[in-house]
Structures are given as structure tokens and as C-alpha cells.
């Protein structure tokens, strides 16, 4: 079991003919994802050729791609200035899951796109500015390295991961796989101030997913999403939850790489977040080397 994506998910790439779009469509195809086409305006009608030799049809519009391929998910590699429009296009065309990898989308563009998405309740956006989503062994939509993941065997359970950071997620997955923990689904929710799907949305899904044994939540400074997630966990989540917050030593007022990773002197600090998480009974990793162990501790604590 898993959340959001599995081997039946039919994916298109928006921006498939671009260098990043093309590269990661190839890597995702190699991982076994079910990509059925791509969209690049003015390139409609051509065939995109994978390194494997497989060919995918390219369409001018998402609407056409959906009509002709039955796609229900989209991996989005559109340049930042056009990305919010492409997100709205996908939602308007009936795509159910949009995974926006693009980094650097203007905040107000996302604010408008988010309002547009609210008129499309069947559509979910992951990201933007995220590595994507993967259900190991079944479907990878994004730029994460597939090989580090450990699929959950049928009938077994794995760890669900929710993360605002890319490489830190790989670090976590690597530690978990090394320790023998498989993953159910790993979701990079993105490092921007406005994102489509937040921690609470996913905590709810993981809590309900019978294939998920425990949840690891990787956060960072900025905003109060972790504090709100902690409150949600305390009230609604029965499964073991571990967490990590990056940015304890980040200077206030500075944007630490991610547009959303900025703490002020009094709000969005790592200290506040860790306190909130611990108060909610979540096992908080002390360092990035402690991610796997924290999950183990969370599981052990619930077994008591």
C-alpha cells in the first residue's frame, strides 16, 4: 500500500522536451513509472524518444494529453516564470496530481495558482520546489535517486516520509534503507512559502494508509507548518512519528537557500519547532545522522 501514487498512476511530463524534463522522464521511466506522454507547447505531434528507445507522444496542451492518454498525474518541469500558469493548465485539464519540481516560482504567482486550485477540489498539487514523490518499487515522479529506496513488500508496512528538503530526504531514506526499513511513500512537499500539499494533509493520508508503519517528517526553519503539524499529530495521529528540523544555527532574517527557509528573531525558529514537536510526543532527531535512529526510537516508544 502507499499514498497518492502507485503502479497504476499514468503520468505525463510538462516540459518533456526541456533538458531537465527529458532527463528525469528518462530516469523515472527507468525506475518503472508509467509515463504516457508529455506536453510542450508548439512541439505537439512529435514523439519524444527515451534513452531506452521507448517513444512518448508530445502534445501542445495538457487537455489534449489527458484526452489522448488518460493521464491522471503530471511531473512539471516548466521554467519558473511560466510554471504557475502550467499548474493551472494541468488542474483545468483534469489532472489529479500535479508534482511541480520547478524552483523559483514568484510567490504571488503561486498565491494565485493556489486560489485557482481551490476551485478544483479533485486536484492535488505537490511542491513546487520539491524533489517529487515516490512509492518505492512502483512509481517515481521526480528527481530523487530511485536506487536508495527500499520497496515495501506486499502485505508489509514501510515508513512514510514528508519532507521540505531534497538531499536531506535522500539522507533519511539512505539511513532507513540501510537499517532495513522500507518506505511506503516519500513526499517532498517543497521548500517554498506557498506549497500545494502540507504536512497535515500527508499525516492524515499516512495515518489512514495501512501500508505505512511510521512517519518521518523533515522540516526546516521558516513558517509555522511544523508547529501546526505537531498539534495535529498530538490530536489525530496514532502511528509513530519522528522528525528533524534543519536550521538550528541559521542566522535570523536570512533566506537559507529555500525561499521558505527564513526565520525571524522570534518566529519560525528551529528551537520553537523542536519544542512543539517534542511536546507532541514526536521523536526528534538531534542531527542529520540521527534520522534513521529517531524513526527506530519512535517505533520502539509506541510498542511499549
Amino acid at each position: 500500500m502507499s499514498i497518492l501514487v502507485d503502479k497504476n498512476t499514468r503520468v505525463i511530463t510538462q516540459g518533456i522536451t526541456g533538458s531537465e524534463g527529458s532527463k528525469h522522464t528518462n530516469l523515472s521511466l527507468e525506475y518503472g513509472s508509467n509515463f504516457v506522454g508529455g506536453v510542450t507547447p508548439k512541439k505537439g505531434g512529435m514523439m519524444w524518444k527515451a534513452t531506452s528507445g521507448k517513444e512518448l507522444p508530445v502534445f501542445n496542451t495538457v487537455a489534449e494529453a489527458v484526452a489522448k492518454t488518460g493521464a491522471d498525474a503530471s511531473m512539471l518541469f516548466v521554467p519558473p516564470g511560466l510554471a504557475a500558469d502550467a499548474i493551472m493548465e494541468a488542474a483545468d485539464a483534469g489532472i489529479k496530481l500535479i508534482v511541480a519540481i520547478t524552483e523559483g516560482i514568484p510567490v504571488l504567482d503561486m498565491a494565485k495558482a493556489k486560489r485557482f486550485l481551490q476551485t478544483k477540489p479533485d486536484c492535488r498539487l505537490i511542491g513546487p520546489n520539491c524533489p517529487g514523490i515516490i512509492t518505492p518499487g512502483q512509481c517515481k515522479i521526480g528527481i530523487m535517486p530511485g536506487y536508495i529506496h527500499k520497496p515495501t513488500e506486499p502485505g508489509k508496512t514501510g515508513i512514510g516520509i514528508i519532507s521540505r528538503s531534497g538531499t536531506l530526504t535522500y539522507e533519511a531514506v539512505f539511513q532507513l534503507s540501510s537499517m532495513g526499513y522500507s518506505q511506503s511513500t516519500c513526499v517532498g512537499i517543497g521548500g517554498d512559502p506557498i506549497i500545494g500539499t502540507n504536512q497535515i494533509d500527508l499525516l492524515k493520508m499516512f495515518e489512514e494508509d495501512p501500508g505505512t508503519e511510521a512517519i518521518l517528517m523533515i522540516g526546516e526553519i521558516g513558517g509555522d507548518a511544523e508547529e501546526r503539524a505537531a498539534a495535529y499529530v498530538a490530536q489525530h495521529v496514532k502511528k509513530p512519528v519522528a522528525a528533524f528540523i534543519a536550521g538550528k544555527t541559521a542566522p535570523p532574517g536570512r533566506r537559507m537557500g529555500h525561499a521558505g527557509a527564513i526565520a525571524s528573531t522570534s518566529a519560525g525558529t528551529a528551537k520553537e519547532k523542536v519544542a512543539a514537536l517534542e511536546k507532541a510526543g514526536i521523536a526528534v532527531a538531534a542531527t542529520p545522522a540521527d534520522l534513521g535512529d529517531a524513526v527506530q526510537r519512535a517505533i520502539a516508544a509506541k510498542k511499549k
Partner: protein
Amino acid sequence: MKVHEYQAKELLAAYGAPVPKHVVCKTADEVGAAFDQLSNGGGAVVKAQVHAGGRGAGQLMGYADKLGGVKFVPTKEKAKTVAEAMLKHSLKTKQTGPEGQKISTLIVQADAEPAKEFYVGMVLDRSVGLPMVMASAEGGMDIEEVAAKHPEKILKVHVAPETGLLPFQAQKLAFDLGFSNEQIGSVVKILMALSKVYFEKDASIVEVNPLAVTKKGDVVVLDAKIDFDDNATFRHKDVQALRDMGEENPTEIRAAKASLNYIQLDGNIGCLVNGAGLAMATMDIVNHHGGSPANFLDVGGGVTAENAVEAFRIILSDDKVKAIFVNVFGGIASCARIAEALVKAGREVGFKIPVVVRLEGNEVEKAREILNSVKDELPAIRVAKGLTEAAKLVVELAK
């Protein structure tokens, strides 16, 4: 992207907000002339233009008298003296850091002594993904402090990004803040200007603090701050033109040119990491084991060998750095490529201080072979196996 007070105020004025007259000056003589133009017999205010806040309570470094970045001057002579002092001495405030900030621009502002000070600002409320206006009758002070101690004293109104602040919302805020009927019009103008700048120029913060009621009862923007969304300046040539490179850290500018995300800190362990989250976490683990990071540096996923070499040059340009921590998780990118870049950097730049390397992920074995093969040529490179081991080692070596 930050801009100066005078730029923020001129932008708000262009959108209809009432702002006291000011003249931008670069020399004490210009300040003198501006004083004549604006004082109108009653003095004027000289204000240092630096990107840091807390100017009024700051202090000119090495200046004998108590003098910050904002000063009322009753006479032309005093105006010139103050200007000379400001242009000569760096200003230290709680936001500048210990080294202070050099002042190269001043404004002379018509005196508008406030009888009462308010705060109005527009920022993103990340919890709902909507911009909001925050307003308080407790202006003139740090709004975060007010928010922390007296959240009930801050009015908040969410604003739809498609419409901007609606006139009725602005009017209601103005009434709720307790302004008089005569003042409502000016306050609405300021609030609408705030919203227009925010939306039309892709600002991330627009603050008027204080929004002042003068002793005459006029409502004016007495001080203003605007930050712009770095991701959106590409579509605003006029905003780009407001950038003052003199206010930015030259090393950070240099790093940006090489597509590196670099922030200078005051520790002694240089960090080179791929990914923003891991880069922060690397600083944290250094700190956890007793060390002090000299910088945040995210080389990104698609770093070229050339940019990696530049990253080492930048780290090494900081004299405080006593050891370097390279922490890379090869995801799609190969660890071998990072190792090659490391060797290239070592050969071109030369490592006179220890470089602790922790690589994991894609092609890590090949990467270790590469580093092993240059062990004798580049003895400064120390390969660590685990993240904790690496962190401990680099902290030890930096001591």
C-alpha cells in the same frame, strides 16, 4: 531584495500615499542645501540610508558622541556636522552585525514629528497561502515584539491575490485602528498604496512603521521598508534598478555569479554541501559537536567542476576558516563527479587547511577511489565514512 527607506517611500508616494518631503544626499554640502530647502524655519531630520533596521537606536562606530542613523537637526550647521559624521563612520545597529554598515547615502526629511505612531504592513501568511495586512496602533516599535507580547493589539486581514486589498477592507482597518473621520482618507490611501506596491511589484514585505499622525494631525508614511521577492524581480526592471550592491556582502554577490547559494557566518569551519536542507543540517551537526560554521553553502544539484572550484576559493577567501567540511549526498549527481571537482580544486587552489570529505550515495565507491589516488598529492583531504564521524573530525581539526 531589500531597498532603502527613501526608495520605499518614493514608491509608496507614487501609488498615492502621503509621504513627507525628502531630498537624497551624498555629501554634507548637499545635506546643507537640502536643509535650506526643507526646514522651513523648524529644522529637519537627517536619516542614514542603510538596509539594516534599528537605525535610530544605533550608534556611529568610533564617533565620540551618542549618534545613531536618524537625527533631528535644528540648524543647517548641525545638519552638515551630523551628515559628515554619518558619512565618515559606520553605523552599528542590532541588525547590522558587529562590523556595522558603511553609510553612503543620506536623506534630509521635512520635520514631521509624530504625535502618535501606528504600524501597517503587508506580508504573506504562509499558513493559508494568502497575503495579509497587519496593522497596529502600537507603531514605531518592533512589530514582532508586539506580536509576541500583545497579539490582540494586531489587526489582521487576509487579502485575495487576484483583487488586492479591497477598499472596504482598507476603510474598515482605518476605522478599527481608531483614526478620526478627517484621517480615514489618508490612511486608506496608505493601505491601498501598500497593497498596490505589494501586488504590482511582487514585494514580499511592505511595511510602514511608523505610520505617523503629526502634531498637526496629518497622517504620513514616516518610515517604510520594502523587500521584493527575488524570484520575481526578473519581471520588474524598475525594481532591479533600485538594487544597491554597496549594501550587500561582496562574497555573497561573487557566489551568486557562480550559481552558489552562499551566506557568510562568523565561525571557522567552511562548509560545502549540496542541497539547502542538508547544508543547514551540516551547519547544525558541526554546531552539535562543538564547532562553529563559517558559512552556509549550497552548491546545488547540478554543480559544475568550475563552480565547485570557485566555491572552494570563496570559502578559502575567508581568513577565519580553519577547516573545510565537504558533505555531499550524491543523488542523481554522481559522487565521483564531486570527487573529481575536489581534486581539481585542490590542484588549482591549493588546500593549506584540512578538508574533511563525507560522500554518500551514487557512485560513492568510485569517488573514494579517486580521492584515495590523490592521497599523497593532496594530503589535506581527509575522507570520513559517516556523517557524525566527519563532523567530529572537522570540529577537532579546526580547533
